[in-house]
């Protein structure tokens, strides 16, 4: 029962590795978020645009991305893309997978924001004969974004925590560093607890921030 005690020496020894992993985790989160926001917006534009064949196809793609596990999608990208001659470094594959999976969710957020605009406003726009770009850029999107931004913030936090799965495709991020240190020192208590703390220290303040943002948006409404 030597493992029962918390050993500060081990904790200090593994901390530098963990912090190196954390920077990779943040990188993957940022890259994944950018991909998720961009693709999500693309999916929404296509779905709202009601283009024959293309819109239903994108709709099916979004349902598929939402109906299958992120872990298996990640394996698919990691093992299958190279067989088609597309060999990306593990981190890029991970960020791409993260962005692709969450683009289905951000697309729903954008759509919900647009659909929340009351029918009366569309009718008023038509009655006033506003040009199409002013309807979208001046009326619909500003209101949609006010609803979407806090929800998108929540998804960025979720993505931050979900980057732990990139450890399964050899990305040496935070969780991978911890399990590595565990197998190296045969002590799992310190590295895995520290990793939990590090995730918490970043995600909890971020969640409070998004929460505050939500309330500010609600007051101004």
């Amino acid at each position, binding site marked *: 029962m030597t493992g029962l005690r918390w050993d500060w020496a081990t904790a200090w020894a593994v901390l530098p590795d963990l912090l190196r992993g954390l920077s990779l985790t943040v990188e993957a989160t940022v890259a994944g978020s950018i991909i998720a926001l961009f693709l999500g917006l693309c999916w929404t534009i296509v779905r709202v645009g009601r283009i024959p064949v293309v819109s239903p196809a994108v709709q099916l793609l979004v349902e598929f991305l*939402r109906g299958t596990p992120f872990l298996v999608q990640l394996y698919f990208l990691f*093992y299958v893309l190279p067989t088609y001659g597309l060999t990306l470094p593990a981190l890029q594959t991970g960020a791409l997978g993260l962005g692709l999976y969450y683009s289905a969710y951000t697309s729903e957020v954008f759509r919900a924001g*647009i659909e929340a605009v009351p029918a009366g406003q569309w009718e008023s726009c038509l009655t006033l004969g506003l040009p199409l770009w002013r309807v979208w850029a001046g009326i619909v999107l500003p209101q949609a974004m006010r609803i979407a931004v806090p929800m998108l913030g929540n998804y960025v936090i979720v993505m931050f925590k979900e980057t732990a799965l990139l450890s399964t495709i050899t990305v040496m991020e935070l969780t991978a560093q911890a399990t590595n240190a565990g197998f190296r020192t045969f002590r799992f208590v310190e590295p895995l607890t520290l*990793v939990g703390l590090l995730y918490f220290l970043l995600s909890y303040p971020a969640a409070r921030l998004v929460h505050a943002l939500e309330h500010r948006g609600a007051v101004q409404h």
Partner: protein
Amino acid sequence: MRALEPYLPLLLRGIPVTLEVTALAICLAVAAAFALALGRLSPWAPARWGAGAVVETFRGTSALVQLFWAFYVLPFFGVKLPPLTAAVLVLGLNEGSYFSEVVRSALTSIRTGQLEAAVALHLPARYRFFRIVLPQVLPVMMPPFGNSVVGMLKFTSLVSLVTVQDLSFRAGAIRSAIGSSAATYSVTLLVYFGLAIILGGGVRLLERAVNRWAGRDAHAAAGAAGARASTVPAWAVLAR
């Protein structure tokens, strides 16, 4: 695809395992969600703090780290759980922490005046809960519950990382045995997608039953839940 064929039964035997973990974890999640929500609404401060600490811990850290913690760290403290138990425990408590917020907001949406009226009418506590609170609270919770069930199905793929032989675990083993990743993972993804569609449909049936039990207008409920038709008028998207 041809190489995969003899291994297909081996892969598909992961389906019952995946469904078993999903079912057990979702049951635990619902129980935990109600317990945590009631804890956070409790007049007794230590219960509020305890429930709050559990919820924030599970929501603030990565699920995979929690799973590894239960699998690698708990044995150091003398708690040796079988992989399946550890997996169900972590998945259930994690999802339960998220779902407790749904339960909490549903419970707080009941106006206090109604409960005061029920007390004034001298209705017994059990009657107040089952006939006044639940019929209003359950229908509201059903759509997020559906998301939770499908989310849990996908979430269970993580248990493959602690040696539970579910679909994902078997897919990985078969891939390294036959080397054709494209076929193996395509089939695995399709199986998950099929299961998600079936489970989603099942939850919608349950939702209808709950609405009927609660005396809700099925049409109104369906309209609120399934407003699939876009509200964006055609003139705003088609080039003129």
